[in-house]
């Protein structure tokens, strides 16, 4: 198994260990790293081919970024319009200030519908509010229906990616989980056979369970409609067969008009799975007599989003359309996989979203889980400048840390204060250079490199060499040159 007992991933930011610590189980597990790297290589190659196929890719990104920014600036207007139009079409709109309220609203709807079971379309927002364990405790069994989510639910594992959440699990591991939990000992590890097993396992649930829960890829203010994109048809089952349907959506998911889908639908599948279009996109508006659930609810979730909205540089985080292109492009995610991020939102977008949703009370290590290479910004279909937000958050974390009492004598902060002093006066700087050259002479080898330093300096030379200081500084050389009248 990829995760031995005791290494179970914790995706609650309040409880998860810091990133460097949480990354260790993956870094030490070659099978897991291989699974992650393989999946990412496949998606990246497909995405690259299909993005190259679009002559207007950059123009689509520009339009999408502008639409999403416009929505956020006018969020009150569009949410009220959505509420009005969805209600007029027969839907019920609820507002949840936080996760607890969203869970209570959903439970209340399910109780009124007398549902003891509920089928679910993959929704990261429901994972964000930890809905499944809550419903379980309230006596309602939630069945995930996306293949990857079934693998995770039956295998009692956590998602490690927002689009292909079981990418860390390979076929023989899936076989083991299905054989054990579905009682199919004869099952082979052929993906086709495994997929058929999932189809058979869920068919009766689709036909009999009275209620379903979905997320929303987009809410359309103009029509009061909801759009869900998917591949397998499990979403269409959930949207069509049950009597009661609940859509849980973050308040930022709204688009102004139906026509705006022409931009985001061209970007989403190409960015997410490297397909021209995902196999199924469903759009529905309130309740349609004779077709689909006649009892339809939308729960609009804040849960920290308005606090992100209030900060101008951070607000772009909410433009996200959850395509996961950033994590597929990220050199850090590629090494650590998703569990290290201690949140249902991993990768670069998780590194900025999670600490902000936690109101900077948790997940302070995440803004540092990046090399700031900018690959995430380059691929983002709505042009979120993730490195810019990472830097903002880093400075906030440092300010938080600096103001805590224990930090006054912390070697790092002492060192930084000394550095501040040295860099603030030219004469101190020159003196430090001179002393440094004398001091480091003992450690510099003949090749001009320092291979080992004592005490705190050793932390640097443990993993990389340090160039020795040159015999003359640029300043000294320039001054000497002037004296010689050149």
């Amino acid at each position, binding site marked *: 198994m990829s995760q031995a007992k005791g290494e179970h991933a914790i995706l609650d930011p309040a409880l998860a260990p810091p990133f460097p610590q949480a990354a260790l189980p993956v870094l030490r597990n070659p099978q897991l790293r291989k699974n992650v790297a393989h999946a990412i290589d496949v998606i990246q190659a497909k995405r690259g081919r299909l993005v190259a196929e679009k002559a207007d890719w950059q123009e689509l990104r520009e339009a999408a970024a502008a639409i999403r920014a416009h929505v956020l*600036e006018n969020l009150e207007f569009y949410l009220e319009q959505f509420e009005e139009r969805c209600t007029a079409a027969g839907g019920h709109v609820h507002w*949840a200030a936080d996760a607890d309220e969203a869970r209570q609203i959903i439970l*209340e709807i399910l109780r009124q519908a007398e549902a003891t079971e509920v089928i679910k379309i993959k929704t990261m927002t429901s994972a964000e509010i930890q809905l499944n364990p809550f419903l379980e405790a309230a006596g309602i069994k939630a069945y995930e229906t996306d293949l990857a989510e079934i693998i995770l639910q039956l295998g009692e594992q956590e998602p490690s990616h927002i689009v292909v959440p079981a990418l860390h699990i390979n076929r023989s591991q899936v076989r083991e989980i299905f054989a054990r939990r579905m009682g199919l000992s004869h099952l082979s590890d052929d993906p086709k056979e495994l997929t058929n097993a999932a189809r058979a396992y869920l068919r009766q649930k689709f036909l009999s369970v009275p209620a379903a829960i979905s997320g929303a890829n987009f809410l359309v203010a103009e029509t009061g409609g909801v759009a869900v994109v998917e591949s*397998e048809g499990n979403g269409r089952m959930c949207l069509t067969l049950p009597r009661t349907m609940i859509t849980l959506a973050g308040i930022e998911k709204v688009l102004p008009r139906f026509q705006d889908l022409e931009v985001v639908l061209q970007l989403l599948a190409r960015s997410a799975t490297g397909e021209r279009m995902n196999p199924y996109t469903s759009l529905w508006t309130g309740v349609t007599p*004779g077709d689909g659930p006649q009892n339809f609810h939308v729960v609009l979730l804040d849960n920290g989003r308005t606090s992100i909205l209030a900060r101008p540089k951070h607000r772009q985080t909410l433009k996200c359309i959850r395509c996961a292109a950033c994590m597929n492009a990220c050199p850090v995610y590629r090494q650590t996989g998703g569990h290290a991020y201690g949140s249902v939102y991993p990768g670069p977008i998780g590194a900025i979203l999670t600490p902000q949703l936690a109101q900077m009370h948790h997940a302070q290590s995440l803004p540092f889980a990046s090399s700031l290479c900018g690959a995430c910004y380059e691929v983002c279909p709505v042009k979120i400048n993730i490195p810019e937000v990472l830097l903002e958050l880093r400075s906030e974390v440092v300010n938080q840390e600096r103001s805590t009492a224990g930090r006054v004598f912390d070697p790092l902060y002492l060192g930084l204060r000394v550095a501040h002093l040295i860099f603030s006066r030219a004469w101190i700087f020159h003196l430090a250079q001179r002393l440094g050259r004398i001091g480091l002479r003992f450690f510099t080898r003949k090749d001009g490199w320092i291979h080992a330093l004592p005490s705190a300096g050793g932390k640097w030379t443990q993993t990389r060499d340090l160039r020795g200081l040159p015999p003359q500084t640029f300043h000294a050389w320039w001054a000497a040159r002037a004296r010689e009248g050149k």
Partner: protein
Amino acid sequence: MSMHASSRQQVLARIRAATHPAAAAAAAYARLPRPYIRRGQRAAGSCVGLLIERLRDYDAEVVEAAPEELPATIAARLAASGRRVFVAPPGVPAEWLASGYEWRVDRGLSTEEIEKAEGVVTAASCAIADSGTLVLHHSAAEGRRVLTLLPDWHLCILRASQVVETLPEYFDRCAQPPAPHPSDQSPSLGTPVLATYISGPSATADIEMTRIKGVHGPRYLQVILVRDTN
């Protein structure tokens, strides 16, 4: 629900405090940049060719037919499928329902009856060549959503005049109100209340990114393209 009315006020108040729109939303919306490609440059014929290529690329089977050949082509596809029991929406022409098969026309079929059918035959509203996408707006000839979901085999009849090259061209057709009479062949569709965009049969790549055709939706997607334009 009234007990949550205060949360509505609270969330909206937080949004109001966080945002300061400079102009009315409609005016700002009108100024949004739209530099992407609206209309494709292909001739109609090459557009249909592209659609066929892209449908096949995602495992749909496509055949072409002249309008007068359609009933015979449908019968041939049904025969080749090896299936016997089919459902159809109430609005499809009677000549599509080839003899020799058990047809259950959806005038209030139960879910169980639809589940027992081996295939379904429907019309479509539009198709987008660029992404190989079939569009259903669930009219009387396209059927309720469940009708094209439970049967394992879907035969979709598409007219060449319904094919557009780009996704924005489809949305342009939706921006115009639909034709008052379905027989007048106007391309205008109107904004749909329900819509399903289908790009190939249902699929997954959740196990080691290996694309597997057919999970919960129909595993077999067949398209007949009727050449109603020259």
